[in-house]
């Protein structure tokens, strides 16, 4: 049951069950053979009835799909989590300091730690944010940092998602589902709770209201029911007890933002927006956007409303900025980074490009601005044609790509058609930054369900697992 060469979350190299999975293993042995399969069917039925689905783009547009849910939890021991959480807090503090610096003094550029063009040529850099004061000087209020384990089990940060990271609703729903399916399992483990996340989120959002607003009105802004993450938008709005609005529900008058209600206009102070920068305000960004609110950016720049995350946060989570994050930790915090970065070759550098072209079959190549597991080459799994295709693309536009070694992602036992088998996983914890930086002990574990696959994205056949952080 071990996969040679990969760190397995449940078993060590000799195939022995790790300490924190022992109780699970003995529970599993007591289970009748078909129980897991029954429970998985039950989970599917329930998820469909609850409507916990995501909309699919492309050929099946308009359909709603379930994200496959795996019934075997991913368990993280308390000590491991503490280190991880400390590292995440450190990293997100540095990222926020970087964004604030970029839109104000630009010290890090003046000191030559990051080449200026890496920032200013970046599509996510928003000149209109220059000199704009945001509440609490915080930009990325909500970060969904993708973490993987490789080698001997050390944690690496793969991506800092600072724009509109999603998935937190699955973290919460997966836990509810596990408690419903396997209540007795929870008496064998002390699992840190996650269900206070919406409360933490609401408190954080209220804490970053514009100066002078004592009882802020918070709303969640969604692109609408056809967005793939619509379930999460409505879920979070409901859990926080705030309105879920679309662009058409808001308007700006006298630099204040209002929502149209059955009792007339009502002031809005904090907008947790799940709409990308480009679509926020047709007057400031894409004029063809029907999702946005004309005049929103003026109101925002005037400090009348808080947008969360701040406009322009994406400048810090771009793959071309990613290699500099450890330097940011040193520069802004004067600390050594706790979490590793994955070594990254920047193909815009001739030396790096040469190395990448010479080692394509071993590397993972990603588009600098890509997301969702699209536009990506996984060398070891690619065909000869795919590699040739990427070689041509790299030679034509090297600046659009970065490359990383193919990480031996850790595996976690997963219930698949053939029974219980190891599958590769990642982890997305959610970091909230307001007056302080907070993390719920948990996150979303995504699992690549296809044997050998390293792509965990739900749009590419990935599933999810409940993530248990054990209490000390």
């Amino acid at each position, binding site marked *: 049951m071990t996969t040679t060469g990969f760190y397995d979350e449940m078993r060590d190299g000799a195939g022995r069950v790790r300490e924190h999975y022992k109780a699970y293993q003995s529970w599993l042995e007591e289970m009748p053979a078909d129980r897991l399969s029954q429970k998985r069917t039950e989970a599917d039925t329930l998820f469909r009835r609850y*409507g916990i689905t995501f909309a699919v783009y492309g050929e099946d547009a308009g359909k709603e799909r379930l994200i496959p849910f795996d019934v075997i939890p991913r368990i993280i021991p308390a000590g491991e989590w503490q280190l991880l959480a400390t590292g995440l807090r450190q990293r997100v503090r540095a990222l926020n300091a970087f964004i604030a610096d970029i839109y104000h003094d630009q010290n890090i550029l003046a000191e030559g730690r990051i080449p200026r063009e890496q920032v200013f040529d970046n599509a996510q850099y928003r000149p209109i944010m220059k000199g704009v004061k945001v509440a609490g000087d915080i930009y990325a209020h909500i970060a969904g940092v993708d973490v993987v384990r490789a080698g001997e089990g050390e944690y690496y940060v793969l991506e800092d998602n600072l724009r509109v990271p999603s998935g937190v609703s699955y973290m919460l729903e997966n836990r509810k589902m596990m408690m419903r399916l396997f209540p007795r399992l929870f008496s064998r483990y002390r699992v840190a709770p996650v269900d206070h996340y919406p409360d933490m989120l609401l408190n954080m959002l209220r804490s970053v209201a514009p100066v002078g607003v004592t009882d802020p009105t918070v709303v969640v802004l969604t692109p609408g029911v056809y967005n793939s993450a619509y379930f999460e938008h409505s*879920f979070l709005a409901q859990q926080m007890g705030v309105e879920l609005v679309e662009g058409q529900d808001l*308007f700006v008058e006298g630099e204040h933002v209002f929502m*149209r*209600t*059955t*009792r007339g206009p009502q002031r809005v102070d904090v907008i947790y927006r799940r709409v990308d920068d480009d679509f926020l305000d047709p007057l400031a960004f894409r004029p063809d956007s029907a999702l946005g609110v004309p005049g929103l950016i003026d109101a925002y720049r005037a400090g009348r409303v808080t947008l969360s995350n701040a406009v322009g946060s994406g400048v810090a989570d771009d793959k071309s900025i990613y290699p500099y994050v450890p330097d940011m930790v040193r520069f802004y915090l004067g600390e050594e980074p706790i979490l590793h970065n994955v070594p990254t070759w920047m193909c815009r550098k001739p030396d790096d490009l040469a190395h990448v072209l010479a080692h394509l079959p071993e590397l993972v190549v990603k588009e600098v601005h890509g997301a969702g597991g699209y536009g990506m080459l996984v060398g070891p799994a690619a065909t000869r044609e795919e590699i040739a295709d990427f070689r041509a693309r790299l030679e034509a536009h090297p600046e659009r790509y970065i490359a990383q070694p193919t990480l031996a992602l850790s595996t976690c036992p997963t219930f698949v058609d053939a029974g219980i088998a190891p599958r590769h996983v990642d982890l997305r914890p959610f970091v909230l930054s307001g007056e302080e930086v907070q993390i719920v002990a948990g996150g979303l574990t995504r699992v690549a369900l296809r044997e050998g696959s390293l792509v965990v994205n739900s749009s590419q056949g990935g599933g999810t697992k409940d993530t248990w952080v054990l209490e000390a």
Partner: protein
Amino acid sequence: MLSRTADHLYWMARYMERAENIARILDVNHRMSLMPQSQAQAEQAWGATLRIMGLEKAFGQDHAEVSADAVLDFMVFGKNNPASIRNCLHAVRENAHAVRGTLTSELWETANSTWIKMSAYTLEQIHDAGVSDFFEWVKFRSHLSRGVTIGTMLQDEALRFIRIGTFLERADNTLRILDVKYQLLLPAGEVEGGAADYHQWSALLRSVSAFEVYRRVYRDVITPSRVAELMLLRADMPRSLARCMKEVHANLRLVSNDQSAETERRAGLMEAMLRFGRIDAIVREGLHNYVVQALAQIQDLGNRIADDFLLPVSSAR
């Protein structure tokens, strides 16, 4: 509450109520078709069903002639029929989906699972299991939805707009049911109590779940004018026009805003006219004329509610 949210809630409730009433109408026709009758009578009855909902034209585009199976298919599954039960239940689900955060999870799951089941139904299945079973299912999903609404929703604006939608739609449907049956059962020149068939009137009562109620209230034979009185003026009869307008008016007063005074006044006026109205006067002046007028008033109220509450109110207003 957001105007858009109120709009979705209102239409969610209207479509649920519409699905239920269509099931009721179809069920009655189906039951009546089991009694001895001529081909012409049967066609007339199915044609009347289409007339109730103002769907004769739309039906004509899909089907050449009126038959039990064709009408059933059109009214239950008709893709081009905006009022088919399938389309209504889909609209319920889509409206609920758009505001699922405002609904209790039980209410959302009711709408969602109703649609999941409906989308799997086929005409063959309905025939196999017995069409009445299917109509029963639709009615009970509506009962369930209403019960979950009242049993779980906070008594705030969201509930008010749901209730307004339910009762405005029901008022409209009750009037249509009465009108068509009245015309059908009382052909020109015929007097009340004449050839009008007991079975037909009792079927009409059953379509609004009022057969037993009639017996309790009147303890007498079924006459057309009493049926009309029960369906229009009896405020204690849950599907009567009087009851519906009472609810619409009461709920409107609870969501009142700066511009809604005239809408409330018109709803109040209608309620009062029903409360103090007499059935002899209505019958004397012609029931059909009365129904046409009342339907127009309901439509006017619907438009005014949309203007006052549901359409995004521009800041300039």
